């Protein structure tokens, strides 16, 4: 459920930013394109798949309209689920609309997204503006998103909660040389309301049970303030006709989580129609102040969490991709591409124990798992 809360704001807001960032040039409208994507995630007992369709079309010379339809079909038998509940399936659908208005060197963007599932409804509105400066070497952008989430609980008709999410973003992109462009982004997110997952529990020592421990519901603070700053760069290797990109993000919040994420990628064309890419990603974070894998007794403190996303862990990812371009001579489209991208991610937890493996209470093996993320999609430019 906390995952869905993030989804409710992050996915549409990010897509809006990515659409703007992906335009490939300053002070022009986003590319007119259509994307048909199938996505699949498989890892840790969780399988998620579904389609995503994006259409971006200009209306005249200064307005761009975008529509996105996205579906998650989830089957979950994750470690959290199998130890405290039973496997479940559900479906989340999301519709988004984006509008960009270009006036000279200024682009104004509006977005609205509606996400629905059985126990979580989210609406998010976003607004942004970007301005090209200094001979189009510099692009400055600011943005704001507001999310309103209604949370319910399957099996409990009396459970109704709400959370608001506010996101403030500022970014700067700078051409440094004829082969190097860099950008920096800062984002502050403020959550206010019910931030728990109503299904999740923490465990505490209880000598009176056969397991030696028992469960009680998680209790989170009602507010969360986070800050993230990211620096990225793309460098064109003239000798090889390829590009290398690198990025780093620093994160901290008032729940006590500090995190750092590194990214490195290499993209190279091959022959006339192929583009290949490879990427590495590393994420490290510590745990929230109120996280524990095993509390000493019931109600041990005001706030209680055993959500592994809030624990101390690392993730390491390796990705590859291939793209084949076609249709430059076709009459209906400018061009098209068929794409395959695959990522392997290894999550290694340092204070989240695998209760399925058994062992002395508090000394069970630490949990880890691999996930496989696949995207297959076709893109058309017109």
């Amino acid at each position, binding site marked *: 459920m906390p995952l869905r809360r993030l*989804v409710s704001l992050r996915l549409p807001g990010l897509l809006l930013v990515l659409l703007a960032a992906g335009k490939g040039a300053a002070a*022009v409208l986003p590319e007119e394109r259509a994307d048909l994507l199938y996505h699949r995630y498989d890892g840790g007992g969780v399988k998620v798949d579904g389609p995503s369709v994006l259409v971006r079309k200009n209306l005249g010379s200064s307005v761009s309209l975008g529509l996105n339809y996205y579906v998650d079909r989830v089957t979950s038998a994750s470690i959290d689920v199998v130890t405290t509940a039973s496997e479940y399936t559900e479906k989340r659908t999301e519709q988004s609309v984006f509008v960009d208005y270009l006036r000279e060197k200024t682009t104004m963007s509006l977005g609205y997204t509606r996400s629905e599932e059985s126990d979580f409804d989210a609406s998010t509105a976003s607004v942004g503006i970007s301005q090209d400066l200094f001979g189009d070497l510099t692009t400055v952008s600011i943005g704001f998103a507001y999310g309103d989430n209604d949370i319910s609980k399957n099996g409990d008709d009396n459970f109704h909660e709400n959370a608001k999410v506010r996101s403030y973003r500022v970014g700067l992109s700078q051409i440094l040389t004829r082969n190097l462009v860099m950008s920096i982004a800062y984002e502050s997110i403020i959550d206010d309301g019910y931030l728990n997952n109503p299904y999740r529990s923490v465990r505490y020592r209880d000598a009176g049970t056969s397991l030696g421990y028992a469960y009680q519901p998680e209790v989170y603070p009602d507010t969360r303030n986070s800050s993230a700053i990211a620096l990225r760069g793309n460098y064109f290797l003239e000798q090889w006709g390829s590009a290398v990109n690198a990025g780093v993000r620093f994160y901290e919040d008032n729940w006590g989580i500090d995190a750092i994420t590194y990214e490195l990628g290499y993209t190279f064309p091959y022959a006339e129609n192929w583009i290949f890419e490879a990427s590495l990603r590393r994420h490290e974070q510590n745990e*929230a102040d109120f996280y524990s894998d095993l509390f000493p007794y019931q109600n041990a403190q005001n706030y209680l969490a055993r959500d592994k996303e809030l624990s101390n862990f690392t993730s390491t990812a390796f990705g590859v991709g291939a793209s084949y371009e076609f249709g430059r001579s076709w009459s209906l489209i400018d061009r098209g591409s068929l794409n395959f991208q695959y990522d392997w991610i290894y999550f290694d937890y340092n204070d989240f124990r695998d209760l399925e493996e058994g062992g002395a209470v508090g000394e069970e093996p630490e949990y880890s798992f691999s996930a496989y993320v696949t995207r297959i999609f076709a893109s058309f430019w017109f």
Partner: protein
Amino acid sequence: MRANLNLLCTCSLLLLAGCATEPWVKPYERANLANPIMSFNRDPVSASYLHHVYDSREGARGAGIASGGGCGCN
């Protein structure tokens, strides 16, 4: 963490310092920057989905990609 933030702030100031001078990369010198492989995000739907995967499974969030990534190529 604080030292890292200071380092990043320094980098951002250096980026901003570049704004105070004459454009030194002329439009006709931006062919490499205009190459699609130099885009911060060539495939927005796919990248958005992958960020969603990470946001859902990690405690950190935000600034997943630097915004306003125009390259000034046109």
